[in-house]
């Protein structure tokens, strides 16, 4: 009898389940706009400056439309992004639905392949975008933005970096929406001044300072390259920075394009310059053996111990989010990684996010154009952690002196080059380059072997 009752209850439960399923599945429908995929989409629209899509959006023509975005920033960056576009959304009535994923790099290819491309995708690696542009999946932004307008908003070097080979000739694969300067050496301002050290202006002075700090009893540098599956990337940044300082920008471009092999003496020389500091156990906190096992985000922390256990840390502007709690803008400062050979001046290594468009609709064009303006970044800049690539951002927007100087540094640098490992194809840039450097630093292989191993990535 009781068993029978239980059966009834079981069946009733199943029936209820199925009903709820049906009901909720109808409610959970997301709106999936039809997307004209393949995306050349020049529907006879000629680029004009008067009455641009952005102007139309500001007039409320696209009210109620939704533009989907997909990108790698999550957490704090996601909140900052949403905050900075809020004013635009309220003004125009366009809803920018941002979706952030830690697995952006892996997912975007599946999404585009599966016909589920977002309207706009945010690529931190132009190298990854190149593939989509080549297949004609991404829309050429020049179909709706004029040369004059783009030249007004961006410096030439930015525009050049956004130009990529498309299906038929070179196209502008996307627009630069935010950037971050990488050639920065961070230090603990108070301790540095108290110890009487001075900011070095040349590589020799930097080495002298390193030696001085070692004599005083501390390792100068704190270096860590562990980063999970991406272990090794901080080492590639060092090599790129030194490359820019020991050879011509043309050689750097060739190297990034794969025309100058890793086994070339120029590259070898750069890595050796790095090793002079890295492999001297008196210069590095924890010694050479700890470099490959220290998480990059933790490696900056010894600078702010009391007394500091290390003094210098070379890393991009974003590292401030890794500083220990309670460290304010008064406690730290940075200087540019000094020039090695005077004739190459003071170069800047940068990274940044390029926004590419996959679905060509008027409201998406309007949003893309909005992202070329400084307004789209304003709140983000004020909250810290980002440098604007576009020209129409006032320096007073930056929250503190350190970030303002980064923007100035970008404007005054002799050469600006994008992070090479992010521009190389994935098999090298985020494959053998990371791995080869890690092997070399941890001492598993000798330099020549490591470099030829990295080079094999090009053949894949």
């Amino acid at each position, binding site marked *: 009898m009781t*068993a*029978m009752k*239980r*059966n009834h209850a*079981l*069946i009733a439960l*199943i029936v209820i*389940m199925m009903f709820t*399923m049906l009901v*909720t*599945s*109808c409610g*959970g*429908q*997301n709106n*999936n706009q039809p997307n004209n995929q393949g995306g050349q989409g020049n529907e006879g629209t000629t680029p004009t400056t008067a009455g641009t899509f952005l102007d139309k959006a500001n007039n409320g023509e696209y009210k109620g439309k939704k533009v989907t975005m997909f990108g*790698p*920033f*999550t*957490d*704090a*960056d996601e*909140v*900052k992004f949403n*905050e900075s576009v809020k*004013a635009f959304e309220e003004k125009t009535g366009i809803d920018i*639905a941002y*979706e*952030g*994923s*830690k*697995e952006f790099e892996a*997912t975007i290819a*599946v*999404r585009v*392949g*599966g*016909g*589920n491309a977002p309207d706009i995708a945010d690529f931190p690696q132009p190298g990854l975008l190149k593939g989509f542009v080549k297949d004609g999946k991404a829309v050429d932004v020049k179909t709706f933005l004029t040369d004059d307008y783009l030249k007004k908003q961006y410096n030439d070097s930015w525009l050049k970096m956004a130009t990529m080979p498309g299906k038929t000739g070179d196209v502008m694969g996307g627009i630069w929406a935010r950037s971050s300067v990488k050639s920065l050496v961070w230090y603990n301002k108070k301790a540095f001044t108290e110890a009487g050290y001075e900011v070095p202006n040349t590589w020799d002075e930097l080495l002298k300072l390193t030696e001085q700090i070692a*004599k*005083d*009893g*501390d390792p100068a540098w704190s270096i860590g390259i562990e*980063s*999970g599956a991406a272990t090794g990337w901080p080492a590639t940044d060092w090599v790129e920075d030194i490359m820019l300082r020991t050879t011509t920008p043309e050689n750097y471009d060739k190297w990034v394009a794969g025309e100058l092999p890793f086994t070339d003496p120029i590259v070898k020389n750069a890595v050796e310059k790095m090793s002079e500091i890295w492999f001297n156990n008196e210069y590095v906190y924890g010694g050479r053996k700890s470099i490959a096992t220290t*998480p990059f*985000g933790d490696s900056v*922390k010894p600078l702010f111990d009391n*007394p500091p256990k290390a003094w210098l840390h070379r890393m991009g502007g*974003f590292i401030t*989010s*890794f500083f*220990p*709690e309670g460290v304010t803008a008064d406690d730290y400062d940075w200087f540019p990684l000094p020039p090695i050979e005077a004739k190459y001046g003071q170069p800047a290594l940068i990274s940044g996010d390029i926004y590419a468009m996959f679905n060509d609709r008027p409201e998406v064009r309007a949003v893309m154009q909005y992202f070329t303006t400084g307004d789209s970044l*304003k*709140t983000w800049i*004020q*909250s*810290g952690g980002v440098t604007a690539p576009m020209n129409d951002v006032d320096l007073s927007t930056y*929250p503190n002196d350190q970030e303002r100087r980064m923007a100035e540094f970008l404007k005054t640098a002799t050469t600006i080059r994008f992070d090479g490992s992010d521009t190389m194809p994935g098999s090298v840039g985020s494959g053998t380059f990371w791995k080869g450097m890690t092997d070399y630093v941890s001492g598993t292989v000798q330099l020549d072997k490591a470099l030829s191993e990295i080079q094999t990535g090009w053949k894949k």
Partner: protein
Amino acid sequence: MRKTKLRKSKWLVNTVLAIICLVWFIPTLGLLISSFRPAADILQTGWWNIFPHREWMTVEDIQLPKDTDLRQPIQVNGKTFTDQQLRAGVDLDGERLIWENRRARLVNIQEKKWSVITRFTLQNYKTVLGGKSYPITMPDGSVKTERGSGMGRSFWNTVAVSVPATVIPILIASFAAYAFAWLRFPGRRTFFVVIVALLVVPLQVALIPILRDYTSLGLNGTYFGIWLAHAAFGLPLVTYFMYNSISQLPRDLFESAFMDGATNFTIFSRLILPLSVPALASISIFQFLWVWNDYLVSLIFLGSQPEVQVMSMKIANLVGSRGNDWHLLTAAAFVSMITPLAVFFALQKYFVRGLLGGSVKG
């Protein structure tokens, strides 16, 4: 004689089991302890330091002359050491000499003493459940604190995904298993072999084709879509599992039911389902755990829009764009573990209770 042999082998099995349990348990314990420790502490000391242990403690400082050359042998209290030795620490009958601060030329004399760490915090759990807070500077210069979302929303999203994604495949698979086991129809064997063969097809190969279909059907990012996906990916194993259990039931039972005029549906709902509760419970646990912990399928078909984002994705995003908040993972892991544990313990008794025993006797 035989008894002692048996006892011996039992003892061996138990020891092996105990070791395996320990190997699994210790890291989990470490994770649990770490989830209650402040992030800075986790970096400094291992979790086992919360137990009483003997540690080097400074009893005296020795100030060396400021101009001591670190690259020459160094005199401390009349004895000579090298810098290397002082970095690693030199043992002198129970005491240890080690640099406190090389820059200040300060050497510590340390002794081993009992110590224990008692700094614990609930902050990790608070952040994980309540969301982080982000200071945002507004255009007018004022600073506003934006509160991120905690795990509450994604918890319910995960429930909404997991429960139907467990029930649907098991329901369908039980029907199918009954048919494969007790009904005679043409092509029965072939179909069954095909289903078993599907077990070895990795689900990754189906991602892009299914995504294309979903896009054209508008199923992307919907709960219904992900239920279908999970159900389809889970069906081969569940069918096979249920078949094994249902085909073992005694034939006499069904024959007598048929005699009494029962239809197939009656037999299935009145006899098969109650009799295979242990099997249903165990495969439910498997399927539920798989769906609950799934990352890949929801990443592709559900995405991470906040209204549908499941917990595994939320947790991955918690660490921040550059992994700066890794310490939250400890607490998040335990929060996400609670439900599977509850499900496991709720269904566990069915493993033990064999319903079949005595059922034939009537």
